[in-house]
């Protein structure tokens, strides 16, 4: 029966996605960029909207929320999955409001103004059925996908405003966004890049190779040399895994050191991060904030004797507080860390912060 086929097909795809998420996190499978994850999540959510059975917006939101919870549970450190789910939930709310005939964007956020003027305890329960809702939501998700595809280019387009000739730029590890950013600036400007290798995974080496192929003068340094070299650096440009709700970062380990060294020398720290990395979490959840992988990279298993005598940790992420960051460059332009709260209120609805 076609109906049953569609459903099993959908659940198969969801399961496959979840399995990939779980595998991708253990460090063994091919590492996917977060852009890819975001696109795949949005595509999967579009498929769910198209194929799952639902009558009102409330049902759809429940289904998506449930799938979202499963996906975030599969890989808690991959926050882009949760962010995409929240974006889609906001899209559904907006389309519902628009179908319901309310003009423009009624301010759905809590505010003092709303407290004073609201007539009743308006519990929007999204129960009304609108036939064109499905098509509208799918179209909006398509727009979201187009936006996602263009993020790296939008960020790279802003490179010429920030990088000037004969500058020394420092970066750490490997970020596809920063790579595109620097390559775009290299078309018109000549500058020098210093890459911190970011042990133990040493992704900095790949970054340096890629940049030098594009004709940029690159130097690789060890993480320990960051402070020593910082006095010669004009700007620090880094990528990040997540941007937190207070304007802080969850970035690859070693970034906090880099940020502190930059602050000490009053060097501007610029973070290139697309909007889908913005997450409504705060850095207080100790259980899900950090991810540890096999300490094989730090102390290989061949070092037999020492292993029984020492504890070895290999954390993947670092927290960088918002005071150390100068500017966020995203696909919608440059913003100060203190403005993050505003961007968040535009992207997500406060009730969706907790899936």
């Amino acid at each position, binding site marked *: 029966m076609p109906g049953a086929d569609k459903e099993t097909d959908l659940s198969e795809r969801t399961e496959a996605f979840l399995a990939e998420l779980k595998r991708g996190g253990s460090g063994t499978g091919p590492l996917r960029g977060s852009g890819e994850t975001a696109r795949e999540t949005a595509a999967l959510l579009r498929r769910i909207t198209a194929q799952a059975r639902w009558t009102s917006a409330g049902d759809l939101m429940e289904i998506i929320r449930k799938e979202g919870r499963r996906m975030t549970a599969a890989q808690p450190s991959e926050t882009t999955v949760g962010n995409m789910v929240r974006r889609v939930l906001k899209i559904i709310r907006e389309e519902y409001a628009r179908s319901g005939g309310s003009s423009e964007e009624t*301010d759905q*956020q*809590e*505010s*003092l*103004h709303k*407290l*004073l*003027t*609201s*007539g*009743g*305890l308006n519990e929007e329960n999204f129960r009304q059925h609108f036939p064109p809702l499905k098509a509208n939501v799918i179209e909006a998700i398509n727009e979201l996908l187009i936006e996602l595809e263009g993020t790296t280019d939008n960020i790279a387009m802003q490179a010429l405003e920030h990088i000037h000739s004969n500058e020394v730029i420092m970066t750490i590890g490997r970020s596809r966004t920063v790579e595109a950013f620097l390559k775009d600036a290299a078309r018109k400007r000549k500058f020098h890049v210093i890459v911190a290798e970011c042990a133990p995974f040493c992704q900095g080496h790949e970054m340096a190779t890629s940049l030098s192929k594009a004709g940029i003068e690159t130097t690789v340094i060890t993480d320990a040399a960051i402070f020593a070299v910082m006095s010669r650096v004009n700007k620090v440009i880094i990528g990040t895994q997540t941007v937190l*709700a*207070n*304007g802080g970062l969850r970035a690859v380990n070693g970034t906090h050191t880099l940020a502190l060294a930059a602050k000490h020398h009053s060097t501007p720290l610029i973070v290139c991060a697309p909007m889908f990395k913005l997450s409504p979490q*705060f850095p*207080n*959840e*100790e259980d899900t904030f950090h991810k540890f992988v096999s300490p094989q990279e730090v102390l290989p298993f061949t070092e037999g004797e020492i292993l029984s005598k020492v504890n070895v940790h290999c954390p993947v992420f670092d927290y960088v507080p918002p005071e150390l960051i100068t500017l966020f460059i995203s696909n919608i332009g440059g913003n100060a860390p*203190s*403005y*993050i*709260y*505003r961007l968040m209120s535009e992207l997500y609805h*406060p009730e969706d912060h907790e899936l």
Partner: protein
Amino acid sequence: MNEDELVEYFRAQMRQDPDVASAVAAIRTLLEFLKRDKGETIQGLRENLTQAIDRLTGVDSSVAVSSGGELFLRFISLTSLEHDDLSRCKKVMVERGELFLKKISLSRNKVAKLCHTFIKDGAKILTHSSSRVVLRVLEKAAAEKKRFTVYVTESQPDSAGKKMAEALKNLNVPVTVVLDAAVGYVMEKVDLVIVGAEGVVESGGVINKIGTYQMAVCSKAHNKPFYVVAESFKFVRLYPLNQQDVPDRFKYKADTLKTAENLNEEHPMIDYTPPSLITLLFTDLGVLTPSAVSDELIKLYL
């Protein structure tokens, strides 16, 4: 409702429910005043209300009462813009007023729900003087089976800290009372600082019991997070740039203002903590960074 009845009603509200915030009691009193008002025009109503608010601030000069009063006036203006006819306007106002009161009575719980996740197991918390909101947050954290210890400052001149310590002992939370002067000494031991607020100003700074500014400076020096918990009706339209800018009428108790000969010789009861020292504000509108506060106020007043 004449002035004495007004004051008596206010005092009765505070007596009946010692747990209620003074701003809420003020708004309740003003709502009662509104119900009994015999004015014929909205303009007359506003004038009477302004006088009533002045009278109330004469009884309790705290920032909270003043912000509650201003919020109520704003509420009247917004509602009166929608309806021209006075009697219908009054009916709508009374309805909305009751609804507003109901919503803000839930605000402390909302704040507690947001804040308790920031208290980790084994945390050592420092707080200042006695705040009912902080108490609610700590209650919620204790109910979530988190283990933590609390240091409370004594907070002279009224030793309010001891009241807080009593309440915490009843919750079986290990608590230590420290001298106000010992804040610097104890700061290296604590993990985070949580304080309440009497008023949250436009810049995102807070006005709170004297000694809060000191605590904030110390926590900045030691790199400890400084959290403020406050309900949204405490947002007030002030923009002090330093301690001197805070109006005298908030700094001293109402009786002191009336009887003192030289205010310079009196001890102020509150101080101003600038937003650069505050990490996050927990309100019923969500977790806000200090820069987000002015956004909220603009949405309301403009």
